[in-house]
């Protein structure tokens, strides 16, 4: 069974055709529980997200700030397994028909086995994967299996990436490119720097037609609206996680992420 890379590509193209940016949300699997995490993702889709990235929690999340570290920690202490991540992808996609990606670090995939991981992710209806500590020059094995199973390989680019390097990355990537808005780890920020717009422009010219979506630091509708003026998609993670962490109970957490998704969906349509 082939993965849903085309669904991802079509979804981003449809947003573009509507003259808006896509809303891409991130939530870790197993947080606060496996079933609770699946419900949260369904609520985020219902609120208006176009795409969801499901985090596969890792013991050593070196690119994540305190909010996602805390969520990963809760999920791992709850005993989340890769099978639970696959179930999360399957149920979130089956319930909504929308594209679902996995975001994680390279060691869990390497250890699980690249063929086994890509085959299971495709079978679960996944659309692709983001592996932020797997740089393009180490990615040949991953891409071989991702391509075979119809999964997108979403690379991250950073403001420090030089133009030649951007060209190398976009040539190898598929689905979209994740442009980090700033130099730093995940987490909410007061503002998204001007360097994000520069990075999107520099990335776009290297490969026409490959969407460039911006993440890191985006947390509210105003920021989403600002980023939507120059990017093909807006990625929001820590702000969703924080809504669940701060909620007094699970039901209000679900309502809070649904509401945030609704606000952000307006933002990406320029209605902040």
């Amino acid at each position, binding site marked *: 069974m082939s993965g849903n890379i085309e669904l991802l590509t079509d979804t981003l193209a449809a947003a573009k055709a509507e003259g808006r940016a896509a809303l891409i949300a991130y939530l870790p699997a197993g947080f606060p529980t496996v079933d609770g995490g699946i419900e949260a993702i369904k609520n985020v889709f219902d609120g208006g997200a176009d795409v969801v990235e499901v985090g596969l929690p*890792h*013991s*050593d*999340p*070196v*690119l994540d*700030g305190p909010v996602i*570290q805390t969520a990963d*920690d809760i999920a*791992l202490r709850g005993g989340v*397994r*890769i099978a639970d991540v696959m179930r999360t992808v399957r149920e979130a996609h089956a319930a909504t028909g929308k594209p679902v990606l996995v975001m994680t670090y*390279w*060691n*869990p*995939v*390497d*250890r*699980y086995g690249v063929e086994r991981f890509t085959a299971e992710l495709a079978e679960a209806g996944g659309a692709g994967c983001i592996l*932020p*500590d*797997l*740089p393009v*020059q*180490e990615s040949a094995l991953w891409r071989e299996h991702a391509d075979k199973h119809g999964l997108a390989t979403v*690379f*991250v*680019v*950073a*403001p*420090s*990436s*030089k133009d030649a*390097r951007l060209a190398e*990355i976009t040539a190898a990537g598929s689905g979209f490119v994740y442009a*980090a808005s700033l*130099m*730093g*780890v995940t987490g909410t920020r007061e503002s998204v720097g001007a360097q994000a717009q520069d990075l999107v422009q520099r990335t776009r010219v290297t490969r026409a037609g490959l969407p460039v979506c911006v993440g890191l630091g985006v947390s509210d509708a105003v920021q989403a609206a600002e980023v939507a003026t120059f990017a093909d998609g807006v990625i929001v993670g820590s702000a969703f996680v924080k809504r669940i962490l701060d909620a007094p109970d699970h039901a209000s957490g679900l309502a809070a992420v649904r509401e945030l998704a609704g606000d952000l969906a307006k933002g990406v349509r320029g209605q902040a």
Partner: protein
Amino acid sequence: MPSNYFFPDPEGQVPSSEGYFGAFGGKFIPEALVAAVDEVAVEYDKAKQDPEFARELDDLMVNYTGRPSALTEVPRFAGHAGGARVFLKREDLNHTGSHKINNVLGQALLTRRMGKTRVIAETGAGQHGVATATACALFGLDCTIYMGEIDTERQALNVARMRMLGAEVVAVKSGSRTLKDAINEAFRDWVANVDRTHYLFGTVAGPHPFPAMVRDFHRVIGVEARRQILERAGRLPDAAVACVGGGSNAIGLFHAFVPDEGVRLIGCEPAGHGIDTGEHAATLTAGEPGILHGSRSYVLQDEEGQITEPYSISAGLDYPGIGPEHAYLKDSGRGEYRAVTDDAAMRALRLLSRTEGIIPAIESAHALAGALDVGRELGPDGLIVVNLSGRGDKDMDTAARYFGLYDTDAEVAADAAATAEIEGDAK
């Protein structure tokens, strides 16, 4: 004029251009760090070609660090090692009290050449942190040291030393609150502040070029030891023995001996409470290949790639990874790695203190315990060089608690009984 202390690019032993030692190494880093890591590689390549770099480093090695370090024969200790002759390479006598200063001074010079004004580093036992804080004071660089919260408690003396030297010490409260987590936090800082900051990595792990570069700065240990043992004993040793956490002091000692096929290279990993208890940090003995902190090597992990929490009484060895060149030496059979328990290391620490008047770091005591076994295996004709990578002042609180050296009669009495046991061993 060739350098007496800096020996980069040993013939036939450099990693590949992508930083691979066989199947191990590489560069598994976030895109945000690619430019910075590439800059380190380019600047290091330039420095290797520049006689001025070697001249500056040589001057520091002689007049600041106090190199060459002594090679001390320890016959009373060796009486417990089956009668083999045992020599200690005295990296504990370097300025700051460990081998770490060799690498730190090299990278501090590099930091200056890159025009960066701030240095960050991780530390376990505090030896690398102290050395880094020292070099930053010397070079006028801002310095932030990340240290696991558990380690700030068990190595409180070194925390005070770093602060005295002007460094900011950040106690890391995530994960296992030890060395691994300190490295995670240092990487997070680096990603956010890479413009003006150099990550002065303290061991032979991490992304390329760190494993090769840090090794090069420590090769002086083995080059000196090889020359010294030939002068003193008239032949090469049967074994070179060192403790391994990340592996920097071990690779420093081993490397000059790699072409000498008759010299066994023996690394001593921390077995903690014993391999079968699961409470250990013996990565090469009990780990599997995986990716941690920027390179592929052996790591302690579960079947789904989650890193497992290591344990060792020694903060400097309490790490679930290992430098990729050690993984390569292990798989190629050139290196031998064995595990030494907390108890064996602590017994060796006390034995060296009482037979030779040298108090070793708990890290180095793992190598001493290994050497006792190797000596017994070799017998009276054996000849062993052990890297005494650091001194034990920092560990006196841990040792005092372990042996009951604080003032209560019962503990002093128990200690006297233990002394008798050591003397009994010698017969």
